[in-house]
């Protein structure tokens, strides 16, 4: 028996991330110079001692499966439990994708049951935050709740962009409003749910038989529970939390890391490490004329040019005469001599020829490029040279 089993929804397609998610699922998108987005949630589980975690993938799962593997980097390769990848099951009649977040859990009831847990934690793999789920669980037990939803205070003027939970003074939830035009509250749901398994199971089975349900936690399960007057509580989270759902927010969250202390997110917190699959690249090599300011640079990089307010992932090469500013450079990118990049996100293994200039204006969304996009741009402008 396991007290609490985690279920991580990693099926996000991440359409609004454009080219970044053409070939990989959103949780697999590189983040923070070394990581992938999902590493934050996986590390939260590992650090919170959630020893059994089902990861539900569907959209382009290959990269993600390879990344997670047997869970060793997160110390989750356990003999009993650990991290288990759950792909949609291809039945004899041909497989089907999960039709909603609740459906995804419903289809894996047998998986959860085999551990006979008392509680189930449902999280998704596309947010950046550091959180101790044990504290959430402790409150859940204390209030004897059927479900506890983690919430974060958002500025009132942005509240209408979120799912808002209306609560009584003791944080008991009496109403859930998805993107309310006139928010009564500024406590936004973070998409992190702690359920008492017996209760959730019953609701999932009932919901699965509802033809007109979209089988979604936010739209169907939670409202139904509220309607039945179940004990739902909000858990107030303090700290950094960001949904990196758009190119702009993805870029911002990376930039936030450069001043991480200001944001309460700490990659170098020894007690709350973010783990990832290690690439084993040698230490970075900084050349004689390089200037690196206000940036994060990962192992395997060779830097000869100027790097300012940027994030360089593994194995990036910046030649002499380059200026990289407010940019995010994914692994394996070579930036040829005398190139200038400003507010650019360069995708994996792109070869940028000598003398390339790309910049997005201060008010524009940062530019995302990969080899195809770059080749197209260069063909139009007559090449980088």
């Amino acid at each position: 028996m396991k007290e609490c089993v985690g279920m991580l929804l990693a099926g996000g397609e991440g359409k609004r991330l454009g080219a970044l998610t053409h070939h990989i699922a959103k949780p697999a998108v590189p983040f923070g110079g070394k990581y992938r987005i999902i590493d934050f949630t996986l590390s939260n589980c590992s650090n919170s001692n959630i020893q059994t975690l089902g990861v539900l993938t569907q959209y382009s799962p290959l990269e993600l499966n390879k990344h997670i593997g047997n869970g060793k980097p997160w110390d989750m390769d356990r003999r009993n439990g650990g991290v288990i990848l759950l792909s949609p099951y291809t039945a004899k009649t041909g497989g089907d994708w999960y039709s909603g977040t609740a459906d995804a859990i419903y289809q894996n009831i047998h998986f959860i049951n085999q551990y006979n847990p008392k509680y189930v934690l449902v999280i998704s793999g596309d947010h950046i935050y550091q959180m101790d789920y044990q504290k959430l669980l402790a409150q859940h037990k204390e209030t004897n709740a059927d479900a506890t939803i983690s919430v974060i205070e958002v500025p009132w003027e942005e509240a209408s962009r979120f799912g808002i939970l209306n609560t009584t003074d003791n944080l008991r939830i009496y109403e859930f409003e998805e993107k309310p035009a006139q928010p009564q509250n500024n406590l936004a749901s973070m998409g992190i749910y702690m359920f008492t398994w017996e209760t959730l199971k019953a609701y999932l089975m009932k919901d699965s038989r509802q033809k007109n349900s979209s089988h979604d936690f936010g739209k169907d399960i939670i409202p139904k529970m509220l309607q039945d007057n179940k004990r739902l509580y909000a858990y107030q989270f303090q700290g950094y939390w960001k949904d990196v759902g758009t190119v702009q927010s993805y870029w911002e969250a990376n930039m936030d890391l450069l001043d991480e202390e200001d944001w309460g997110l700490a990659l170098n917190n020894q007690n709350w490490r973010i783990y990832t699959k290690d690439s084993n690249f040698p230490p970075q090599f900084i050349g004689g004329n390089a200037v690196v300011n206000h940036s994060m640079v990962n192992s395997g990089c060779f830097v000869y040019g100027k790097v300012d307010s940027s994030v360089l992932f593994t194995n990036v090469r910046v030649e002499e005469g380059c200026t990289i500013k407010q940019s995010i450079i994914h692994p394996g990118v070579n930036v040829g001599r005398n190139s200038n990049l400003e507010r650019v996100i360069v995708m994996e293994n792109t070869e940028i020829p000598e003398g390339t200039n790309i910049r997005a204006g201060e008010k524009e969304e940062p530019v995302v490029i990969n080899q195809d996009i770059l080749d197209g741009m260069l063909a139009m402008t007559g090449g980088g040279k």
Partner: protein
Amino acid sequence: METMMGLINLEHEHHVFNELTYFRNHASIPLAGRYRMIDFALSNMVNSDIQEVAIFTRSKYRSLLDHLGTGENWDLDRRNGGLYILPPDWNDPTDVSKGDLRFFHNNRDYFNRGKSEYVLISGSQFIANTHYQDAFRSHVDRGADVTLISTMAEKLEDEHTPYFRIQADDLGWVQNITNERNNPMVFTGTYIINKSLLMELVDDCIAYNHDYFFVHGIKDRLSELRVQMYRHKGYSAFINSIESFYRHNMNLLTEENYLELFYKPTFVRTKVSNNPPVNYRQPSTVKQSILANGCYIEGEVEGSVLFREVMVNEGTKIKNSIIMQRCKIEEDVYLENVILDKDVHVTKGQRIIGSKDKPYVVAKRREI
């Protein structure tokens, strides 16, 4: 399929590391930002398709145990085969063996249990990134008893002094193993030997009360054995003193050498950390340096090697120095030609300049 098993023998290696070996043996000395000396011998073995490696180690092996862990970073956490660290723990009252022969004698099980018919033996001081598959093929094809791996020293330095020199004929058959200082063909301490012969020679050495397997079992019996030489080409270094340690770390600050040692033919494996990328703060200036992850840089760094999690505060300048893991350098410090071992804390305003030939060394965990 013919295969080799591995043995890293740390007994009888000459070394003078002073401060760096107060609390660890020489195989555990940190190198090049994130490695330890032993990583090279071990990675080269794994890259030669060796699936079981034993290590003979006499003392101060605690940090070695810590570094190697379950062997997973070298893919040696196996059910069959894997990594065997063999400190002295001997309980045979009839044992009369001496020197490294005690290790061979008391670890017969390791050799007998292994399925391989050949053994690759090495020390830890020959630093190169290579594999021994070609040497092995040559060993088998030529029907040698022993194949010695040598390297041609471009320039003979002090660090070459303790090593044997090899004279071989045009076909590679070894004619002589000497201490002749001017012969640039240096024996790397790495050799391939047929397992059954090894066990036989070990018995023989013990019977004659010898105490150094290579010298008495192979060198002194050269005329009776078919000994081949195989020459290693490419970048390499012998590190057996503070001076050679410092010089070779500095040599890596040339991209050419760095690529040779760390990118060809494959990566050197070491214990992985979970440190974030290097964090360069607003006013930092770093030039001609190697930096491992987890560093936090506000000051200036030039011509230096920084290990994981080094913190360089504002107003500080570090030049031509080697700063090991978790050192904390406070504001307005100046360090030149300095080696700081792990966890050293340099307080505000300190100014330390060592000599280029004899860098200033600070032992682990000191505060200065």
